[in-house]
């Protein structure tokens, strides 16, 4: 048996320990990001969730003006947390379309009454079909769509105050 071979187990073991130690001290980012960023928004038609405004149709995203698609649900706690930020964006003239996942008109109505209503349109996505088509893996998530129907940015999780400039910049770039 060659001498150096005897050291192989130790080397392998050292490698494993090093790997695990590195991963432990650099808490892994387990967010699953959508691979659709940079690609065209899949075309989807969503029925209106509420009687007072239309649902979502593909043509919306080809009118030359960037829009936000906000995936949300009334049963989702962090969705309430981002309500003020969404309101702020809406106040600055951003068109926000909501995809309400697995939700009912009553619940959505109550949710908007309580937390504010920043949405231009609200489509109902009862089986998470649009969510899956966009590569979104949770609620809330926000996609920035440019005026030609391309997804330019994905924001995972609730939008916080310091996320607003980034989103506005993405909207600006998409013009």
């Amino acid at each position, binding site marked *: *048996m060659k*001498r150096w071979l*005897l*050291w192989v*187990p*130790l080397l392998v*073991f*050292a490698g*494993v*320990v090093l*790997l*695990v*130690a*590195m*991963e*432990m001290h650099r808490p*892994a980012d*387990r967010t*699953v990001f959508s691979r659709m960023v940079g690609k065209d928004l899949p075309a989807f038609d969503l029925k209106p969730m509420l009687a007072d405004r239309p649902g979502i149709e593909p043509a919306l995203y080809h009118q030359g003006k960037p829009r936000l698609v906000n995936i949300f649900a009334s049963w989702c706690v962090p969705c309430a947390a981002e309500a003020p930020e969404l309101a702020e964006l809406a106040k600055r003239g951003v068109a926000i379309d909501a995809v309400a996942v697995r939700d009912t008109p009553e619940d959505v109505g109550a949710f908007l009454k309580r937390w504010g209503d920043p949405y231009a349109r609200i489509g109902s996505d009862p089986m998470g079909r649009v969510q899956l088509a966009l590569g979104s893996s949770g609620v809330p998530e926000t996609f920035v769509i440019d005026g030609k129907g391309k997804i330019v940015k994905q924001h995972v999780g609730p939008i916080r105050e310091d996320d607003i400039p980034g989103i506005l910049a993405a909207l600006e770039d998409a013009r």
Partner: protein
Amino acid sequence: MIAETGLVLLWLAASLALLQLAMAIIGLRFDRADIISAVRPVAIVQGLLTALAMGALILLFARTDLSVLLVAENSNVAKPMLYKIAGAWGNHEGSMLLWVTILGLSGAGIALFERRLAERTLIATLGAQALISIGFFAFLLLSSNPFARIWPPPADGRGLNPLLQDPGLAFHPPTLYFGYVGLSVAFSFAVGALVMRDVTPAFARAMRPWALGAWLFLTLGITAGSYWAYYELGWGGWWFWDPVENASLMPWLAATALLHSVTVLATRDGLRAWTVMLAVVAFSMSMIGTFLVRSGVLTSVHAFAVDPERGSFLLALLALYIGGALALFALRIGSVRQGALFDPVSREAGLVLNNLLLSVILGVVLIGTLYPLVAQGMGVQLSVGKPFFDKTIGPVALILMVALAFGPLLRWRSDDPRALLRRMRAPVAAALFALGMLVPFARGISVLPLIGLILAAALAVASILPLWGRNLRRTPLFTWGMVIAHLGVAVAVAGMASESAFTRERLVALHIGQGVQVGPYRVGFAGVRPEVGDNWSGIGGVLTVSRGGETVTLIPQQRYFSDPVTTTNESAILTVADGQLYTVLGERNPDGRWQLRLWWKPLVTLIWLGGGMMALGGLLALIGRVGREWRTKRRRRRIEMGYLP
């Protein structure tokens, strides 16, 4: 006072462990017979003190002394006594204390009973054991004192996760710990043998009962854990290739390889370096397993009580012990004499093949489990799961089954290949018979389970052949053990293959009064009724289940716990001779129909029956081996004393 006494006992035990290590080193280094002769007593007292400390903790839990922080956090007055006591080790600190207790008692056992190993090797072994204990003592005393008080004591404790209030789970962790500690003892023996350059059959015989015992407990632990996941998770799966499951499988694979290679060393003085290596690997797998479970580095369904500080500590211990042992191995093994020689067709060669295949499986499980971390380091997110392990491990496991059929029929040292093939006639006939039986079903079965069923038939026959033509009364117990364990493998594989090939699944939504056919059973949905338990309320679905003329009622439940708020599905399982009917009650649809998940799983129980048989075989082998050692020892003593010629 009990808590303070416990803490004092713990400090005393830790100091004795330190003393044990120092005395072993000094005694061996300076050849001081007086110091060496004092190591055994120290080890015995150390073990006793640790056990008393554990006893104190159990007593605190039994009395629910809420002025102790650990009790207040993990127990409450209302719990049944069984869970109160199990609470003592159902938490991080207590489980660590249990670990050192078993470790200390094993050390005491070796010190008391082991007389055949060279004295210096034994002292080195006890030194290595003390070193392992010290690491855990340090952790207990410096950062997670189980006896810490809380002031003012709360009125009631916090209880235990309802999912974990299960008699199976109360004993699941200690079972695995017995296994892990057994492997740590085997590891200590290996380190002692390396330090003394004394890798001999005597060393193998001293280590073998520990490897066997460890394997037996790991087998029991994995089998029970698999059944728990099967009935608790509610989707009918029994093995998910989840990181935590893999963490328990890896030491088992290493221990399986170890107990086969240690036999070659004990009987034929072969595979010296390999056996030492395996002992180190087996213990490192149990440490890595514990680490993966505790540190939360990998995501898992079973992830609980994750704490990075504890993770770092375990990792440091792991690096120290295993890295040290592997370095020692590389430095020393070159000077260990070459073991005995053997032929390519021989029992030894068969066992080498067994070790080769088990090691490959172990390597694949390890790499598959850690690869998502590697990929993350490269900036890629990926998942490794069932399909990967099926594709890679499946074929290797089937080859292993063939080797397993041949192995016990081979002669030691050298065998005639043609004679071997003659001996294999009956198993081959069994395989052909199974193939014939399966032909009508073959269209719907995938390749892996099909081959699995055929090989299981062959293996079942082959595994009992070693008893053929023998006087069964005079057949040694450890041969019975081997036969039963190998038969257990055939039984378990038959169960797995049958479950995978013949399971009938019905996922339906039914109105009350409707029914559905699942495999041989007619399941009628008679209604729902409220159910109430100690700390939950729920709904039970009343299912009338009939087959032929017999009718049974099954009541799968949905349980709602308020603290913490959780919903669990409680499956209801009907076990009959040829399989299980597995039923789960799901949600109620808005149209008033209830979702039901129903499975007919033919022969699925064989999986756990086979696991139990393997453990039983291990137990018989252990009793047989230890009994024989004991008898030869007594006989020798009698000869020495002149009673026998």
